[in-house]
């Protein structure tokens, strides 16, 4: 993985190969878990970074739930490499990994990602057909059982924010739900999107503040301050409904309702010129600055057990 080109976008098969290489190179630190299968039978791979122990408290990071947000899968790949290179050299990360496990799902929506490479670069949703409609796919970030179907998602299968026929109808979502429930000890859950330069916490479906609103707010402020320290990229932050718009059935509302206090979602950088076609030379700077914010959240999670 030293020769993997982190400055370029990669296909799904290249990312799968990268994951296997990383595991082969770091067998004592990294393993691959297949938590399920996509609609088109692709494996849902999760990299587990662990220094031992059983059922340690854990941090979950995912990228690429929306297929066309290529910067997220690319950043996830960079994070994976960063985790192995910094363990043992960076004191903060070493302390985290000596106490907690980190799970990283680089491509949450592999069918959609494959489709962006081969058929439609602008595809966002899953690839499951919708009964009674010619439109394909569900927005996997409206398919969670948290305010499912409330305002902030669409009931129209042709919409980019179609919530699906029922909560967890998408195998890509259900696989994470089952994993989180069976693990039972995940303490932070960070879901990464692009491109609005935001860091948000629950809720999206209601204006009622989360019980931990104050702590989530101050940690978000610290995280985006640390992020900005590298290249000056300015983020907005706050609860999702206050920061962006009402959205129902979203990932972090479900994880928060499961008791995962540090539930956050990122919208990575917006250069104001390219939208989802962020040039590849932006991958590493985006990943580098995001890493600083991730470290802030992970460090806080490690130092503030609950």
């Amino acid at each position: 993985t030293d020769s993997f080109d982190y400055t370029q976008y990669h296909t799904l098969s290249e990312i799968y190969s990268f994951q296997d290489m990383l595991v082969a190179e770091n067998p004592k630190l990294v393993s691959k878990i297949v938590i399920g299968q996509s609609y088109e039978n692709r494996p849902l791979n999760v990299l587990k970074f662990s220094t031992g122990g059983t059922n340690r408290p854990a941090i979950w990071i995912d990228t690429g739930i929306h297929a066309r947000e290529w910067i997220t899968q690319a950043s996830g790949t960079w994070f994976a490499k960063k985790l192995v290179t910094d363990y043992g050299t960076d004191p903060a990360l070493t302390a985290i990994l000596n106490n907690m496990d980190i799970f990283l799902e680089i491509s949450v929506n592999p069918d959609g990602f494959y489709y962006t490479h081969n058929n439609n670069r602008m595809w966002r949703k899953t690839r499951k057909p919708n009964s009674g409609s010619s439109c394909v796919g569900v927005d996997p970030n409206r398919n969670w059982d948290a305010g499912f179907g409330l305002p902030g998602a669409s009931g129209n299968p042709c919409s980019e924010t179609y919530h699906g026929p029922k909560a967890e109808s998408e195998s890509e979502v259900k696989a994470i739900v089952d994993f989180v429930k069976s693990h039972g000890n995940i303490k932070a859950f960070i879901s990464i999107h692009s491109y609005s330069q935001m860091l948000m916490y629950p809720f999206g479906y209601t204006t009622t503040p989360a019980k931990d609103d104050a702590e989530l707010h101050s940690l978000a402020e610290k995280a985006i301050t640390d992020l900005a320290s590298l290249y000056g990229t300015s983020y907005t932050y706050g609860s999702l409904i206050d920061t962006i718009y009402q959205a129902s059935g979203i990932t972090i509302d479900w994880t928060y309702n499961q008791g995962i206090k540090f539930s956050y979602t990122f919208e990575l950088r917006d250069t104001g010129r390219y939208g989802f076609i962020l040039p590849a030379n932006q991958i590493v700077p985006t990943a580098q600055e995001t890493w600083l914010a991730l470290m802030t959240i992970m460090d806080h999670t490690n130092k503030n057990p609950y």
Partner: protein
Amino acid sequence: KESFEGHQVLRIIPKDDIQLSLIKELEDMIHFEVDFWKEVTRVNTPVDVRVPFHSLQSVKIYLETQGIEYSIMIEDLQVMLDEEQKEMMSVARAPEPRN
């Protein structure tokens, strides 16, 4: 492979609540087949919308007649996608791992 030739991405910045609701109405005009990259949120917050070539004139006229300012963020999406593809293809790939 779907082509996005002639598609533009417009950046619209709503100046007041009336403009906000007018842009939201654009979302409901399904025949335009617009794709909101950045959804309508609040006043002075950019909305980015991909507009297919066949709807460009109508959407621009709609915005202009309502007095809503916009700029063209992406002039021709397919040109950018071609560049992206070219860049991906030109990079010397690392050899595949041995079986």
